[in-house]
């Protein structure tokens, strides 16, 4: 992984990583780590503002190989026996002063998480990403592992980007989330407000459940309903300030917090906002001009990580759908249960959307998916009787679009029977551009 200086980091070389709060730690690349490989860096949890119960055990990230400590910086060892290989440089240094280098090093860790998720593929089998990113919450949500694996690594980088934006006072833009984006286990960025101070900080969470409503007040039917909107969502959140896992039910419509587990938030917290992490990253990459600074390059890298996260999500879907379709095939019970848990509540349009994502993932696995679809179409289960008509309508729509996507150019002399060799005279304007 090249640092911002452009050289390649090799095993044994020291690098600087940072957690989402901007705390910096120096560590050494373990021996045996190849370019693109994953290694985890554990950092101490920040001292919580209030006493909190011990968090659930993390999803067992592999420990990094022992690293050489750097003398003269022992602040980070406090209160955590697991931390021995990391030495915080100076937690009080404002990240903005060195953001280019540090950000890119942080993305290094996040990137490894994404690659790990994409490679593992199958649902529920991917471990959490770098613990320095806070994405370890993925393993704590049971069947949500596939979603965490897809975006986990990238989320850390995005979390930092947004954290920095929140520090700078930027207001996250609102966007209506679709039902598909808020499926169980999907990563969401949650802006948590402090009702007393008015300050905001963000946290990454995984969706546990969601409630949808239509503008008219009627219950929402499916993701194809344009009037539906997310009313509330319960999200498993790891607070970057306290390193605490908690369930938070938050609303896009009202400012009321309906329930939460763990340390109480302020009772009059301001309205919260749910946001997709990839949108956060994309906003962080909004060009301010030419790529002239290390910070811009770091944002570019964050954007690339977001793209990788999207790809990993699609790969996970690609792996999951065949399991969904082959209900009685050679799928182990555990896998089938995991998939049923994830997709059991999906409506038919949602399955259609997932097929699109799976196709976008590409690769030979989609052929296997089509084979499974063929089997499914021959023996449609209840609730999917409309699937053939839906696929047919969609196929015709695509063909229609393809037919309309044609550009044609023709000479002044039209072609036609008997005209192929006829020479005609005309005086075309020089260098004309007909179309």
């Amino acid at each position: 992984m090249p640092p911002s200086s452009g050289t390649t980091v090799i095993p044994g070389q020291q690098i600087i990583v940072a957690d989402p709060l901007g705390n910096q730690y120096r560590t050494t690349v373990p021996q045996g780590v190849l370019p693109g490989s994953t290694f985890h860096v554990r950092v101490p949890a920040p001292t919580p503002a209030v006493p909190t119960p011990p968090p659930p055990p993390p999803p067992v990230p592999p420990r990094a190989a022992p690293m050489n400590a750097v003398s003269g910086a022992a602040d980070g060892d406090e209160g955590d026996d697991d931390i021995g290989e990391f030495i915080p440089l100076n937690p009080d240094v404002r990240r903005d002063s060195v953001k280019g280098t540090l950000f890119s090093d942080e993305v290094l860790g996040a990137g490894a998480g994404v690659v790990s998720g994409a490679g593992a593929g199958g649902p529920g089998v991917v471990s959490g990403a770098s613990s320095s990113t806070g994405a370890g919450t993925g393993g704590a949500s049971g069947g949500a592992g596939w979603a965490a694996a897809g975006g986990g690594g990238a989320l850390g980088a995005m979390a930092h980007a947004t954290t920095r934006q929140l520090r700078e006072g930027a207001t996250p833009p609102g966007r209506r989330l679709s039902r598909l984006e808020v499926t169980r286990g999907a990563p969401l960025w949650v802006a948590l407000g402090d009702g007393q101070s008015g300050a905001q900080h963000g946290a990454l969470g995984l969706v546990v459940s969601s409630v949808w409503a239509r503008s008219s007040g009627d219950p929402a039917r499916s993701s194809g309903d344009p009037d539906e909107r997310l009313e509330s969502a319960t999200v498993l959140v790891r607070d970057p300030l306290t390193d605490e896992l908690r369930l938070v039910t938050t609303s896009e419509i009202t400012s009321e917090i309906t329930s939460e587990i763990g340390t109480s938030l302020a009772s009059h917290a301001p309205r919260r906002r749910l946001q997709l992490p990839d949108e956060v990253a994309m906003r962080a990459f909004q060009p301010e001009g030419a790529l002239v600074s290390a910070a811009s390059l770091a944002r570019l890298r964050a954007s690339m990580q977001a793209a990788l996260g999207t790809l990993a999500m699609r790969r996970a879907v690609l792996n999951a759908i065949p399991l969904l379709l082959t209900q009685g095939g050679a799928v182990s019970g555990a896998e089938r249960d995991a998939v049923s848990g994830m997709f059991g509540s999906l409506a038919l349009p949602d399955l259609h959307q997932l097929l699109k994502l799976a196709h976008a993932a590409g690769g030979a696995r989609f052929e296997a998916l089509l084979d499974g679809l063929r089997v499914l179409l021959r023996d449609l289960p209840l609730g999917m009787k409309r699937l053939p008509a839906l696929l047919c309508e969609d196929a015709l729509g695509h063909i229609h679009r393809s037919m309309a996507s044609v550009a044609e150019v023709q000479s002044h002399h039209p072609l036609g029977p008997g005209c192929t060799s006829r020479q005609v005279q005309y005086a075309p304007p020089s260098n004309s551009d007909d179309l």
Partner: protein
Amino acid sequence: MTSDDLPHQVHTLTVQGAASLRIELDARCMLPTSPPASLTISRTRTADGALAKFQGKAADGGAASQPWLPIVVAGDTVFVLYEPQRDNSAGARACWGYRLRAVAETWRAPSEDETLKSHLPLGWPMLHLLLEAAPAALT
């Protein structure tokens, strides 16, 4: 002969959103080799970015230039340069009939949002699959 020697026409073929274009020439085109007339598919508005050049007629495979088989080029835009023949005796320009069509061979990778809003890009294969597995859906 270069494109600068004679006045020529430059056409732009664009299919928005395409990642690659399939360029097809009408089989009735005829572009004589002597005196020469040609169609050049180029990435730029000049022959410097030439990707393929068509001369002659479809039946003879276009002589020294590309046979008149469809070609696939990357991108959503190509320029078509028509270089007409010169009739030396009369000093007049002559042109022959031609027609090209560009269709999207592949589409640019859309964003997640665009992916969900667009059709599953498997029109004909999906109809074929339905014909096999659920023909009732096509009636």
